[in-house]
């Protein structure tokens, strides 16, 4: 099942469950948040991409962008993307440009994978109605 898949594989964590529990009388809430998240994060990823092309790298700027990105991923519960953010920040703090670039590729992959999964999930949720949630509470 798609729902279990999203959470069991670690794409989304408990925070996503919390968001779903907030839906209540607003069935579009989570989807709204996801949309905002993608708008926000895509912009940041694009900024980071540009910044990574500069030489020498401005680690402080990169760290700043990543901090914002990490914030958003935390709010939506995008665990895997968040982990890549943390990894990136570590490399950033160590001044390891190569590490940053490598991790960034991974981050983009996770970001886009999650997007597909969420899109599929919302589509399914629309069909099923508010009964199912992505992650069964423990």
């Amino acid at each position, binding site marked *: 099942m798609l729902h279990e898949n999203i959470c069991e594989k670690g794409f989304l964590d408990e*925070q996503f469950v*919390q*968001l779903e*529990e*907030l839906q*209540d009388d*607003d069935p579009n*809430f989570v989807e*709204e*948040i996801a949309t*905002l*998240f993608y708008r*926000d994060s895509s912009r940041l990823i694009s900024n980071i991409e540009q910044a990574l092309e500069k030489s020498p790298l401005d680690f402080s700027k990169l760290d700043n962008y990543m*901090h*914002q990105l*990490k*914030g*958003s991923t*935390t*709010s*939506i*519960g995008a665990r895997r993307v968040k982990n890549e953010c943390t990894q990136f920040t570590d490399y950033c703090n160590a001044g390891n440009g190569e590490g940053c670039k490598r991790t960034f590729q991974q981050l983009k992959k996770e970001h886009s994978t999650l997007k597909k999964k969420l899109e599929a999930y919302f589509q399914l949720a629309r069909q099923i109605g508010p009964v199912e949630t992505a992650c069964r509470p423990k």
Partner: protein
Amino acid sequence: MVMAVEDRAADRPRSSSGELHVLAVDDSLVDRKVIERLLKISSCRVTAVESAGRALQYLGLDGEKRSAVGFDVNLILTDYSMPGMTGYELLKKIKESSTLREIPVVIMSSENIITRIDRCLEEGAEDFLLKPVKLSDVKRLKDFILKGQGEKDDGDKGSCKRMIQHDCVKSSPCDQSSTPLPCQSPPSVQPPLKRCRMLNVD
């Protein structure tokens, strides 16, 4: 985003109706939406702004002649890391203001940094919430604020904070790592506010 609130001057609903008016400050749109939702579900009235500057405007502290704006704010919930003015700086400005210093300020942050938390509490923050903020955090805050307003007693309002500081801040050496600080709150007191959450015990 600053709303025209002259019409609110007439009513000063210091939560006599039980409804809190919360000013939420966060530069992240996603976070603002989530916080707004959490607050609305908790039956609070929300004004969400994107920066400390906007918040000061709304509160009438931006150097312009104080209007009635922001008189009915019962709680300020602000992110710590914001471009321009940080939540900490906003906190300081509010506490420096003779007219606004009574409004409880709560700081939110995605980073669990002990020295940061201490600094905020010492500067007068009521609490420090680790993001992602949960519904239970908001409910607890709300209860605390409403109780404080009902009693309207300075001694009481300070007690939670002093308790936190006494139990948690001084008990262990501080370091920059995110190792949670063990928090021994006396069993007779409802675990106040923030510090104990760092244990991630839910």
